[in-house]
């Protein structure tokens, strides 16, 4: 009986997951290969055949490739600084964590109010006399501005989650290793590179996986700032599901997002693998 106890205790949570996660997942997977009550790959060919698919796919990849490294660098820097603080550490963490409490749609709207034609940025530019009249920043002729605005909003919104994970991870590294590095002649950078980073791998894994998956699911910010100018995988999923009423194709998109997420998760786990015996 005592050997079974842990499993028994896990049962409710497992049942919950099966019901509300596994079941819908199987449903979506099923939908993606189902058309007119027959098994087929047509949903996928329709998806891939549409002219917007590859744009959406590469936009998503590009956004992730730009946003995640920036966030990683910023989160690492901020976490190193916060970890060194003697006092006021929790207040600063709270302040940094404020954007986390804002939904991604709200974040998109906040940045829209900065970039739109009557927004802060235009008022500022006009006020400074840089331009004569407000310019259309988020128009279809300059999608790169939309791209930058999305990157800014994403960085602003979701860097803190990485930072919080990394601060916790750095807190777990015993102080003595940093001291040994100091004594044995490591400069600040060497200490970070040769001691902190390798010992932070488990937290880096968590933070990166979380962020990369969320980056592939970027949606509300993109829609708020770019409308349909900058299609991404999620906005296309939404489009097929609700505007086109093509449930099967939307499911195919969902499967693509899932596949990409799983592939990157495995890649991150491999890259940041800690050999057995080398754990703290």
């Amino acid at each position, binding site marked *: 009986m005592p050997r079974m106890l842990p499993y028994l205790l896990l049962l409710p949570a497992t049942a919950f997951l099966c019901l509300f996660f596994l079941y819908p997942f199987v449903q979506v997977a099923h939908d993606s290969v189902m058309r007119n009550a027959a098994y087929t790959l047509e949903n996928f060919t329709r998806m891939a055949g549409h002219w917007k698919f590859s744009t959406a796919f590469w936009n998503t990849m590009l956004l992730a490739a730009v946003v995640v490294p920036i966030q990683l660098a910023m989160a690492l820097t901020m976490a190193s600084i916060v970890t060194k603080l003697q006092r006021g550490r929790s207040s600063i963490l709270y302040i940094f964590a404020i954007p986390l409490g804002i939904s991604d749609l709200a974040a998109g709207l906040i940045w829209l109010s900065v970039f739109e034609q009557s927004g802060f940025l235009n008022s500022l530019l006009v006020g400074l006399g840089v331009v004569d009249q407000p310019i259309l920043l988020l128009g279809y002729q300059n999608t790169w501005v939309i791209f930058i605005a999305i990157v800014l909003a994403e960085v602003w919104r979701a860097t803190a989650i990485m930072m919080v994970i990394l601060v916790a991870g750095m807190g777990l590294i015993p102080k003595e*290793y940093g001291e*040994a590095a100091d004594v044995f002649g490591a400069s600040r950078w060497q200490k970070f590179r040769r001691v902190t980073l*390798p010992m932070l791998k488990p937290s880096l894994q968590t933070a990166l996986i979380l962020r990369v998956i969320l980056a592939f699911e970027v949606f509300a910010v993109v829609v708020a700032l770019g409308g349909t100018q900058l299609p991404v995988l999620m906005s296309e999923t939404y489009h097929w599901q609700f505007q086109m009423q093509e449930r099967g194709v939307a499911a195919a998109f969902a499967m693509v997002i899932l596949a990409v997420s799983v592939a990157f998760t495995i890649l991150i786990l491999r890259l940041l693998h800690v050999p057995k015996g080398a*754990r703290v």
Partner: protein
Amino acid sequence: MAVIEIKQVAKSFGSFTALHSVDLTIADQEFMVLLGASGCGKTTLLRIIAGLETPTTGEVWIGGRRVDHLPPRERGIAMVFQNYAVFPHLTVFENIAFGLRMKKVPQAEVDRRVKRTAELMHIEQLLKRYSGQLSGGQRQRVAVARALAMEPDVILMDEPLSNLDALLRLEMRAELKGVLAESKTTTIYVTHDQVEAMSLADRISVMNGGRIVQAANPVEVYRNPAARFVGSFIGNPPMNFLTAQPAGAGKWQVAGQVFDGPAAAAAEFAIRPEDLHPSESGLPAEVRVVEPLGPHTLVTASVAGQPFRAVLESTLTPRPGDMIHLAPVPDRIRWFDPATQSAL
């Protein structure tokens, strides 16, 4: 040339004072042992010299250079940490090579030094392992090898052999002493183990409650303790102390016997257990416990109601309850001031 000068260094942690104005000079190439009970401030002093802790007041000089505002890496030291601090994410090889890598030493030289120090510490078969796959004693030897590989001017060792078995410890002790003397390294070595301290040290600094009570060569520390604490801390069994009554003209009465002593208002009589021999004219002692230890017999007795130990020839076997008389070797008697606890 690396003389270490510690000038009036004090350290407080909040309201607790861990070090009270320590003054100590360690000569170039000297082997200095810090000896003291747990919590007396040995690690704190070592960490201040290393630069891992800033002194509340005072100065630290190494090789004629004031270093107390320099970061550890600019002090030209290597250190063996009490808790090892062997990096878990690096193999034993890379751990030992760590300091050399930081200095960008060429690979061939790294290989040579790692091999040499690993052999010295008998861990050459472990070079590919991670620290999580080592025993405590093996990890400790990696920590020592990592410090030795630096070939520094100054090496600070915080109980570097504490986790080894007696035999290995004996062997490592001898090897360490040889290597450090050969490389002309100035060494500060912390230990709890008196025998280790005696055998390694050029000089021993005995610490008590955040102060250095005596810094002298091992024989001096043993024979002429500068304070009652030193006598009671060093020696196994430690020194015996008996109260003494003044008998006028520099004479003192101890347990009914009269001895020549210092001209002072009050004094305490002290004698080492091995400086006693049975004699009709000796101190009367009532035997409590007799422990035959092979080469000699340890007798625990009571003299004038105070505990008293004697190390006697193993041919002598008094019985518990016996009254014996133990005469001190006259020139081995020491006197301490009961008020200041220092030697008279």
